[in-house]
């Protein structure tokens, strides 16, 4: 499985604003991040390589994890994942090959693809990530009638 994980780090003001708004803030931030994750997925889809050993299958495994909150690091983290690979590949390739297939397709820059390319998740992730803080702030503003987010 290969995954792009988008985290907002160092944005203390924004995170404290989300916490101050409680459930409303959390839902607004999650909505914004879910929308951005879908945007990453949409940009990634045409870039997923068509591996001859599993034609079309890797593209079918591309999915977005619902936003979650966790305390994996000091302080609270909100994260959302865009993922490729996993069990869907196992039926076609066997468990051993499926375990590494997605990461090889994503990371191996020497492979020559007829369709798609390496770094099919990372590139869209990098494209979209800079716009996530503004999207969260816009959602916070909307959720509070323009009074919540500073």
């Amino acid at each position, binding site marked *: 499985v290969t995954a792009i994980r988008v985290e907002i780090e160092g944005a203390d003001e924004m995170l404290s604003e989300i916490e101050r708004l409680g459930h409303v803030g959390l839902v607004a931030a999650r909505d914004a991040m879910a929308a951005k994750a879908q945007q990453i997925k949409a940009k990634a889809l045409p870039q997923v390589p068509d591996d001859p050993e599993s034609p079309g299958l890797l593209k079918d495994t591309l999915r977005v994890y619902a936003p979650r909150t966790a305390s994996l690091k000091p302080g609270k983290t909100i994260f959302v994942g865009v993922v490729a690979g996993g069990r869907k590949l196992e039926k076609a390739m066997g468990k051993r090959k499926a375990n590494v297939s997605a990461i*090889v397709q994503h990371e191996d820059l*020497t492979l020559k693809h007829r369709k798609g390319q*390496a770094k099919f998740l990372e590139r869209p992730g990098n494209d979209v990530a800079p716009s996530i803080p503004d999207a969260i702030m816009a959602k916070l503003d909307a959720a509070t009638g323009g009074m919540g987010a500073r």
Partner: protein
Amino acid sequence: VPAEAALVTYLDPLVTETAGTDLFEGPMPEFPDNCVAVAHYDSLAPEGRVMGASLSDNAGLWPVAVQVMARNVSKATAEARCRAYLDLLDNLGPVTLSGVLYHSCEADGEPFNLGQDAAGAQGQGRWRFAFNLTCRKARG
């Protein structure tokens, strides 16, 4: 100077591999079996440009994404060579490479196993280990 060229020039005197012989600007060539490649595979928008006025003093930070891949018929050697390059490049900077200031180079993680390919000189699979690196550099 492309980042991969600057990094290979920097690494050449520090490693057992030799630029042009078994140390390459990527992507990695088919042969030799045992070698290392440094590939500049993506460039990101300057951080000062995308993060707004509060970081405008960082307008000269141009992040580039680099992958280092080590290949060897021995799995242990492939991993060890990859790790040796990680030790040399992670937390590198500020340093001037080929006339360009590199503010920082930070690995995105430890070397990971890309498995074996099936294209060795004797038909054997060759083990590949890689890691990704983000370098924040001046333009040029």
